[in-house]
């Protein structure tokens, strides 16, 4: 199995699920958190939105990879 195959099979179902944030200041808070994480996650990540990832995994028939990271 090569790397492209592996990533293709998880693409769209990767989640950076360190925190759940709600409310109006969500975008600002997310920005602050991602800066703290030094996160440069690409488009294949779904950040902090588990229901969205589940829905996409269902649509694509792929498994999910859920990653928990500590905010320093």
């Amino acid at each position, binding site marked *: 199995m090569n790397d492209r195959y*592996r990533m293709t099979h998880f693409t769209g179902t990767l989640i950076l699920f360190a*925190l759940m944030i*709600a409310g109006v*200041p969500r975008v600002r808070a997310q920005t602050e958190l991602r800066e703290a994480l030094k996160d440069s996650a690409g488009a294949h990540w779904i950040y902090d939105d588990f229901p969205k990832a589940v829905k996409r995994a269902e649509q694509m028939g792929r498994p*999910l*990879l859920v*990653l*928990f*990271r500590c*905010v320093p």
Partner: protein
Amino acid sequence: MKGVDLRLFQFDYDQSWAVFFLNADGTIYGRYGTRAGDKKNAATHLSIPSLKKAMERALELHKQYPANKTELAAKRGPEPRYATAERIPSLQDRARGPTTPQNCIHCHMAGEHLRKLTYREKRLRPADIWIYPLPENLGLKMEVDDGLRVQQVLANSAAQRAGVEAGDEITTMNSQPLISQADIQWVLHRAPVETSIAVKLTRNGQTLDKTINVSGNWKDTDLSWRESSWSLRPHLWTIPLSADGRKKWNLPPGDPALQVKWAFGNPPFSKQAGIKDGDIIVAVDGQPVPPDESHFIALVRLNHPPGDRVKLTLLRSGKKEDVLMKVE
């Protein structure tokens, strides 16, 4: 951890990096992420090759799904006391407002605050302290870049008695398909203290069944690296007394002694008892102090509920001195 479903996401919460592989229906294929006692290196049990292996194994389980659904069922844990971390009473104030790096609920807090509550309710058990045993607890040292291939079987261990050998690849434990060392930890974490663990392995292309029998203190592991240990420490951070210290105080070889690195706490019960940084503890409740901090913590917390007092024997200027310290 705000909003994270603890009914689904149960793992070693002291880790700062952990992975789950799931089906969209909530079935867990496996976990990845293991940390041991090395405080200078958090990645002794992690590597990119073993993560790739775990991904490949998860994909294989996904291909076989749902035919393997029954075997995967036990990868989910029991119903937790609180469905989310912010419902734990001592974490409720962190639930308010948007999450920032300052007020987020860190992973370790989920397990830690629940354990603190259990302690306050006087219901703390050894299983609350000795969590997520390593494969080494069975006597299995795994190849880091594989996760499931046995690199070494420790002498006189439960795994050796069961007939596991170096080079074996462990494929299931208690019928659960495995993808990583974290999956082994999950099986061990959920297993009772007195039990037999069914192991399926491959050796030279053959599938073999082995049974690892365990009992006693096999679940005990190093707690000192865990962030959650700060609230478990009985107002004292201790380390084994150094060789120089032992020589200085003429301690016979084999006599355990812990040195107080930091007397802390609010209220400062350790300082109120007269304990100072640098003090040497040689006995707890009249018995020799355990040889390491982890067992010292466990001994004090399991035998002394909140409000109780523990008798510590200190070695000061060559003389033994007893102090009574309140614990909370």
